[in-house]
């Protein structure tokens, strides 16, 4: 692999730049993505290269952004919409859930909606109740949508390129705390298939299944636990839907113990789906009930100490794994 290191945000930008250079149907659509460069700077410099016809600043109109992307996709474009904060996805959700997700099916396969909706999710920046949401579980529930949530710059680039190439609507979840994280990313083009999980660390005693911000936290927890002789296997599912159950199954058959980690509230979250699937399909392989380590049942609080406490941190993963193997 190339030894060039770039940030997660830069990797996303590179994915969009490469796809826009290759395919004139690809354009960007969202609030403050032009000269401002996006609320988190992800699209910085793209308006200079591609101009305002392909990097389109919109009014504050999430319904028209997601619905507009849907309509443009319907007539042959490949829009990449940005919703400034994941919480604002709720505003445009009618267009995403009732239209984009269902059009191919409802129209009997006669039309398709190749679009990506990118959006920063997650807490940890003190942005409180309306700017810290992790609503990916909602969208993973919708047949017709794909939901991708990469954890590294390498995955971010390869998966966003695949998402832009995908003929289905893809929700692309970007955790805010990952934007500035660095990692090796090749300068050349590559695609990572949507729906393939990856074993990010091999271990034999317990499996952690996670995505997005939970993956680096699980890896850090694994290092701490390794010093105590507990070998943890970390699976990054990368996409919530479709879900790569094969990779999960292989690991569970080896370790017989599983912790599913996710930032949103534990109740009704995506981890519950993973836990239920494991319980149904791999019951005989389990030495202990599957543990769900999710967030607290509350909106994101502003106070920094509380904000940190309500989502799984490294120390929470270490503690729960010790209980699981103990």
């Amino acid at each position, binding site marked *: 692999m190339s030894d060039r290191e770039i940030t997660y945000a830069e990797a996303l930008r590179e994915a969009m730049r490469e796809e826009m250079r290759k395919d004139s149907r690809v354009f960007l659509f969202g609030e403050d993505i032009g*000269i401002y460069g996006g609320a988190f700077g992800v699209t910085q410099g793209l308006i200079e290269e591609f101009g305002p016809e392909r990097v389109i600043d919109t009014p504050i109109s999430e319904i028209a952004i997601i619905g507009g992307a849907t309509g443009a996709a319907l007539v042959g474009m490949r829009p990449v919409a940005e919703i400034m904060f994941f919480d604002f996805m709720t505003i445009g959700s009618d267009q995403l859930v009732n239209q984009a997700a269902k059009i191919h099916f409802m129209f009997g396969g006669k039309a398709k909606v190749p679009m990506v909706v990118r959006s920063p999710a997650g807490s940890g920046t003190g942005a409180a109740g309306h*700017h810290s949401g992790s609503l990916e579980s909602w969208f993973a529930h919708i047949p017709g949508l794909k939901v991708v949530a990469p954890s590294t710059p390498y995955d971010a680039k390869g998966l966003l390129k695949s998402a832009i190439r995908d003929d289905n609507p893809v929700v692309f979840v970007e955790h805010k705390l990952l934007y500035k994280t660095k990692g090796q990313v090749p300068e050349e083009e590559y695609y990572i298939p949507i729906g393939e999980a990856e074993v990010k660390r091999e271990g034999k005693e317990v499996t952690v299944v996670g995505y997005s911000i939970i993956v680096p936290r699980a890896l850090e927890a694994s290092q701490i636990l390794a010093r105590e002789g507990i070998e943890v296997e970390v699976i990054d599912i990368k996409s919530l839907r479709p879900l790569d159950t094969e990779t999960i199954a292989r690991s569970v058959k080896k370790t017989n113990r599983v912790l599913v980690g996710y930032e949103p509230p534990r109740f009704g979250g995506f981890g519950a789906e993973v836990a239920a699937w494991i319980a149904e399909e791999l019951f005989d392989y389990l030495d202990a009930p599957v543990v769900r380590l999710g967030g607290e049942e509350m909106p994101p609080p502003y106070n920094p100490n*509380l904000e940190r406490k309500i989502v799984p941190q490294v120390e929470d993963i270490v503690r729960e794994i010790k209980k699981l193997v103990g």
Partner: protein
Amino acid sequence: MLSLEDKLEMYRKMYLIRTFEERAEELYMEGKIWGTFHLYVGEEAVAVGACSALRPDDYITSTHRGHGHCIAKGADVNRMMAELFAKDTGYSHGLGGSMHIADVDKGNLGATGIVGSGIPIATGAALGCKLQKNNKVVLCFFGDGAANTGAFHESVNMAAAFRLPVVFVCENNMYAMSFSVKKAFAIADISERALGYGIPGAGVDGNNVLEMYEATQVAVERARRGEGPTFLEARTYRWKGHSKSDAQAYRTKEEVREWKEKCPIKFLGGHLKEEGVKEAELESIRKKVEAEIEEAVEFALKSPEPTLEEARRMVYV
């Protein structure tokens, strides 16, 4: 008719907003306040002029740039500052932060982080007032950006059709984050929108607190008579960046400088002097305000943090 005392009180409130915002910004730079916030500096006349036309028990809804509305409606700056410090003594017990300060006892139904989301709530509050026949009016603040949301259209139409007692005050500070109103609208004046809803609309100099007061007064009286909503477009300017992470590449320093010359506080100070108020009196008001803000900072610093147990109790009633 505004008395001299009324105008001096307006001056005090505008300066209180200005000082609160500038002190909060300093504290943020010093790392004592975290997260982000949206400063109201330069727009003080809109909130103070509009809220001065309300009765104490009337309601307002606010925005992400809400500190000014809150102070104009009579909030306690100690509790506001404590909220920015994420302390238990803050308006939201440190759980909401800058974008979610509400002062329900004073009729402030809260700030919001979702642009446009206060407009349906104001409409609903006005519906509640109408059903309760309590003769109260709701004043709904929102920005130029919010005027392009679906929530705006649905709500203004409903309020107009139902003749609800609400006044829509669009604070046109010329930019929705980085997006200029010149690019975001195909009409010259946002107030033209009123025509399409069948309600009166007017553009107001949002840096002139007296004009702001008078226009709101007319709209509030109309609402109280049961004749329905009014749409006011208050033209003003945001001196600071959108939030605490804005390089402001989308506007020129020249433009900012020109607007700073139209400072709403300086304007009212000039007017008061024409009415015979001495500079020493204005200075004494300013000194008192500055001391009040320093006390608020002390109060916030000394206050305890909220606990997780308390936060858990807040999720449900």
